[in-house]
């Protein structure tokens, strides 16, 4: 048997209360988006695409970012409580592997949120009587949001490692989401890690990430992720372990 920090993190997800947020938050975002769409049918004529923008505009700016913030806060709060950091860091696992495992789990949780977003998008569309099914590009945007979202997860893990409070990092995530939205709106999306989800989802209808933008998108995602993860590893391995 080999040591696995990832398996240990996955066990911690059993009966995790945070899953409730993964049902409620996408549901609220979908309800608001569908309500907006239904009330603006005179200007929203593009069917599935307009429903998509209504669903994902606020979701990419607030709800998804808040969900990433909450899931990362929860993942770190597990260890901030009591003497859990003692057990984790007195195990034969390096700080880098501990944080990489948390990143993988946080990323997986983002995947669940995006899958719920996609499922609710189709369900709401059918519920309000849109014809047919949305095209494959929506699945592609969700997949790209998942890829780009790893940068948000890494940044939030770093924030939640440093700030032991649960709510403050969620606030940072929401501010990050708003900053990312405006950064993208002013063509500076690549400067903000939180903008990558907004860009990938094409939530403001400015245009999806095409083949030509794929390299800078992936490179920016990798750069922000490695930077945040590296900073977190440095903090965890160089600082004394503090218990509450």
């Amino acid at each position, binding site marked *: 048997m080999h040591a696995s920090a990832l398996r*240990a993190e996955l066990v911690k997800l059993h009966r995790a209360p945070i899953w409730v947020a993964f049902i409620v938050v996408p549901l609220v975002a979908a309800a608001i988006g569908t309500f907006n769409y239904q009330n603006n049918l005179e200007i929203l004529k593009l069917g599935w695409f307009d429903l998509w923008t209504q669903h994902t505009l606020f979701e990419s700016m607030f709800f998804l970012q808040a969900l990433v913030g909450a899931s990362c806060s929860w993942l770190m709060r597990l260890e901030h409580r009591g*003497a859990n950091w003692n057990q984790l860091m007195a195990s034969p696992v390096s700080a880098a592997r501990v944080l990489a495992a948390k990143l993988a789990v946080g990323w997986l949780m983002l995947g669940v949120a995006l899958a719920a977003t996609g499922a609710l998008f189709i369900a709401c569309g059918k519920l309000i009587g849109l014809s047919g099914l949305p095209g494959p590009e929506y699945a592609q945007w969700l997949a790209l949001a998942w890829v780009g979202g790893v940068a948000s997860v890494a940044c939030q893990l770093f924030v939640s490692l440093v700030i032991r409070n649960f709510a403050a990092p969620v606030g940072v995530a929401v501010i990050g989401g708003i900053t990312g939205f405006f950064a993208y709106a002013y063509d500076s999306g690549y400067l903000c890690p939180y903008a990558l989800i907004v860009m990938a989802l094409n939530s403001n209808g400015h245009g999806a990430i095409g083949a030509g933008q794929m390299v800078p998108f992936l490179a920016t995602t990798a750069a922000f992720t490695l930077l945040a993860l590296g900073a977190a590893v440095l903090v965890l391995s160089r600082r004394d372990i503090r218990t509450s």
Partner: protein
Amino acid sequence: MEACVATRGLSKAYGKSEVVSGLNLCVPAGSVYGFLGPNGAGKTTTMKMLVGLVRPSNGSATVLGKQVTPRNRVLINARVGSLIESPSCYPHLTARENLEIVRSLRGLSKSAIDEALATVRLERTGTKLVRAFSLGMKQRLGLAAALMGKPDLLLLDEPTNGLDPAGIQEIRELIRELPVERGCAVLVSSHLLSEIDQMSEYVGIISHGKMAWQGPIRELHAQARRWLALRTTDDTRAAQLLEAAIDADGWVQVGALGDDDAARMSLMLMREGIGIIRLEERREELEDIFLKLTGTGVSL
């Protein structure tokens, strides 16, 4: 004497306050070493430095033949089990799930969980979540986690905290048996002198971050002064005849005597018409020896 833990001038300061100061600790291999000191003496910080949770400000530590450095932390911790401060647990999980986390982190086989649960008698907790555990049950769970994988060295920080008297006795016996049954050395901290006396072969007394005394606990017992205490029908005369003092409680104190001398003393008192009402052999308390060895610096 081979040491499985050796520190040289180990120190830790937080700002201007030095909580561990120039500590030279030596834990012999295959022994139970009692780390004794009042609350806030620096026991926990020292243990944390041994597993790399806290970086020393000065000095060095060697654990199981390897110097404690950030690079060696993973290698050392693969052979060390620890329960430091309070037991670590995830309250939304069961005991088994909590140990599954430890098993995953240590790369152990599935059977390690059953073994650990049986050792601390938590095998029947089933689906009960840890949030519903008593403090004693959480402490047992912490011990189970520390014991998983049969480590070569165990660091236990006040392991009987929160346990009931039967549990305390059980854990003490378990700790005493570990070197014999598993060849494991144990560094166990406590602020209770009697507890360390019952569990350990070696003791280190830490006070204000400094090592006040360390060595085999039998050396302390060997230094214990013994005497006979008497109550007679005429204590004043008995004290004069035996050239002995009378203590504050009115007992006549006679230096330790062999069986023959004790018999001669009682016959002599009888001849003088003094009856012996009580005769007790007394021994200096371990706590008094500590104070004698360490001056007044240690208060336990």
